[in-house]
C-alpha cells in the first residue's frame, strides 16, 4: 500500500511539472509578450528596456525558465496586468464564489442522479426507468449554455421570477446551479444505473437472495456497496466537467467567480491570470486523482495487489 501511494505521488508530481513546463514555453514563445501588451504604442525603446528588465525578459531563456519554476513552486506567477496584484491573489479572491456554486450544483446532481439511477436499475423497464433514461439523454444532449439562456429568457425576462445575474441571494443560485448540474445528473444517472445493473446480476447477489436476505438489504447493502466503487472514480471526471461548466455558466449569468475571471483575463490578454488558472486546475485535478486512486485501493483490495 505504501509503495503504491509513493508510486502514484511521483507520477502526479511529474505530471504537474510537465504542465508547468508547457505553460512556460507556450506563453513565453507565443504571442503573450507582456512588454508589448502593457506599453502604449508610443513608448520609447528605453521604456521597453526598463520593462524587460523588470520582468527578467532580458535574461537567457534557460535562466527565465528556472526563475519561473522556482517562483511557481512558491505560488508566484507574476502580477496581473489588469489588477496590479499577484495573479494568484486575484484568482483566490474569486475562488469562493465558484466553489459555492460548484458545490451546490454537485450536491444537487448527486442527490438527483444517483437515486434515480439506482431506482432505474432496480425497477428495470418501469416508468421510473424510462424517466431516468430520458433524463440521462436530455442531460447529454442539451447544451448547457443554451439551457442557461432559455432559463434566463423564460424565468428572467418573460416571467421576471429569478434574477439573471449576480450572486447575492439564494435565488441567484437557482438557475446557474441547475444549469451546471444538468450534465453531471445525466452522468450519475447513467453510471448508477449501469453499475447497479452489473452488481445485481452478479453471483453474490444470487447467493444473498438464496440465503433469504430481505430484498431491501440485498439492494442497499450488497449491491450498492459494490456499485459505489465505480461511482467514486467517476467523481473526478465530473470535476473536469464542472470546471468547463463553471466557465460557461459564470459567463452567461455574470457570476463573479473564477470561470468568468479567466474568460475576461483571456480576452483582456491578462496572461498571468490565465497561467495561474491553468496550473491551479491541473493541481486540483492531479490531487483529486491521487486521492481517488488511494481511496479506490482502500475500498477494493483487488487493486492493491495488482
Amino acid at each position, binding site marked *: 500500500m505504501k509503495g503504491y501511494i509513493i508510486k502514484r505521488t511521483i*507520477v502526479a508530481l511529474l*505530471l504537474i511539472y510537465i504542465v508547468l513546463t*508547457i*505553460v512556460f514555453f*507556450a*506563453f513565453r*514563445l*507565443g*504571442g*503573450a509578450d507582456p512588454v508589448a501588451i502593457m506599453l502604449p504604442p508610443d513608448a520609447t525603446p528605453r521604456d521597453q528596456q526598463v520593462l524587460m528588465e523588470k520582468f527578467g525578459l532580458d535574461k537567457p531563456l534557460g535562466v527565465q525558465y528556472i526563475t519561473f519554476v522556482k517562483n511557481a513552486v512558491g505560488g508566484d506567477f507574476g502580477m496581473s496586468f489588469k489588477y496590479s496584484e499577484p495573479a494568484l491573489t486575484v484568482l483566490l479572491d474569486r475562488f469562493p464564489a465558484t466553489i459555492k456554486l460548484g458545490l451546490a450544483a454537485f450536491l444537487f446532481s448527486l442527490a438527483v442522479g444517483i437515486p434515480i439511477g439506482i431506482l432505474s436499475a432496480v425497477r428495470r423497464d418501469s416508468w421510473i426507468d424510462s424517466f431516468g433514461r430520458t433524463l440521462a*439523454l436530455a442531460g*447529454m*444532449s*442539451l*447544451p*448547457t*449554455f*443554451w439551457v442557461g*439562456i*432559455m432559463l*434566463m*429568457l423564460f424565468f428572467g*425576462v418573460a416571467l421576471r421570477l429569478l434574477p439573471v445575474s449576480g450572486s447575492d441571494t439564494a435565488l441567484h443560485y437557482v438557475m446557474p446551479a441547475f444549469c451546471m448540474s444538468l450534465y453531471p445528473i445525466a452522468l450519475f444517472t447513467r453510471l448508477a444505473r449501469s453499475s447497479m445493473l452489473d452488481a445485481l446480476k452478479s453471483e453474490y447477489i444470487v447467493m444473498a437472495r438464496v440465503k433469504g436476505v430481505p430484498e431491501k438489504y440485498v439492494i442497499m447493502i450488497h449491491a450498492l456497496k459494490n456499485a459505489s466503487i465505480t461511482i467514486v472514480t467517476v467523481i*473526478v*471526471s465530473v*470535476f*473536469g*466537467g464542472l*470546471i*468547463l461548466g463553471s*466557465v*460557461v455558466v459564470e*459567463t*452567461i449569468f455574470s457570476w463573479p467567480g473564477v470561470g468568468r475571471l*479567466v*474568460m475576461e483575463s*483571456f*480576452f483582456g490578454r491578462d*496572461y498571468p491570470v*490565465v497561467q495561474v*488558472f*491553468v496550473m491551479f*486546475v*491541473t493541481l486540483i*485535478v*492531479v490531487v*483529486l*486523482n491521487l486521492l481517488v486512486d488511494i481511496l479506490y485501493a482502500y475500498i477494493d483490495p483487488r487493486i492493491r495487489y495488482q
Partner: protein
Amino acid sequence: MFIRLWSLLRGKTKNKKQTDQAWAGRIKMPYFGLACLALFFLMVLFAEFLAPLDPLQGDLLKASLPPFWMDGGSWHNILGTDMLGRDVLSRLIYGARSSLIISVGCVAFYATIGVIIGLISGYVGGRIDMIIMRIADLWLSVPGIILLFVLASINGPSARTLILTFGIMGWPYTARIVRGETLSLKQRDFVKLAKVAGCSNLRIMFSHILPNIVNTLIILVTIDIGGIIVYTATMSFLGLGTQPPSCDWGLMLAEGKQYITYAWWLVTFPGIAIVIAVLGFNLTGDWIRELLDPKQKLQ
C-alpha cells in the same frame, strides 16, 4: 464495407443464430433519432438549395425582424433576421455544415492519434502498455479547456485551434478501445502465423490487426459526434472556437445573447438546431451501442 456494417447492425453476424435475430428485433429502431439525423444531413448536403437567402449578406434596413407568425414578420425571412439583417434560417442551414466539418475534423484527428497509441499499447504490452494507460487515465481527467486556453493564447482562438486541442486531448478514448481489441486479436492464429511468416511488428499492427478493428472503430467514433457538436458549439459560444462572421450555431447564440430581452428568436432557434443534431447522433448512437454490446446480447 457498408454491407458488412449494416449486417453487423442488424445482428446478422457470421454465426446466424435465432437468438441473435430475436435480440436485434427487441431493440427498437430510433425513428425519431434517425429523422433528426436525416434533417441534419439534408441541411449539410443541400445548404445551397435549401437556404432561401445568402447567410452572410446583411440588410440593415431589415435588422431584427421577428419570425413570420409575429407582427412585423414576413415570409421573406421565415425565422426572422439578426441585428445585421441576416436571415436566421439561412444561417442555421449553413451552420449545420460548419458544425459537422469541425466535429468530423476533431474526431478524425483524435481517432488517428488514438489508433496509433492504442495499437502500440496493446501490441507491445508490458511496461509500456501500463505507462500509456496510466497516462491515458490522467489525461481524461484534465479539462480540455485549459489546453485550449494555452493554445489559443499562442495562435489566437479559431476552429483550427479547437480541432488541434481535441486531437491532443481526445486520444485516450479511442486508444482504450483499440488497445482492448488489439489485446484479444493478438492472441488469434492469423497474428501468430504472420509472425511465423516473418512479418515485421509494424506490418502486423497496421495491416493485420488494424483492418479488423476498423469497423467497430468507425461506428464507435461516429456516435461520439453528438457530444462533440455540443462541445464545439460551447467553445464557439465562449469565443474560443469559430470566429465571426462564419455561420456557426454557437456563435449565433453568443451574438443573440446580447439582445435576449427583445429578440428571443435569435437565441431560441440555433439552440433547437443544436439539439436536433445532437439528439439525432445520440439516439442513433445509443441504438448502435446497444446492438453492438455483447453484454446486452446475453441478457
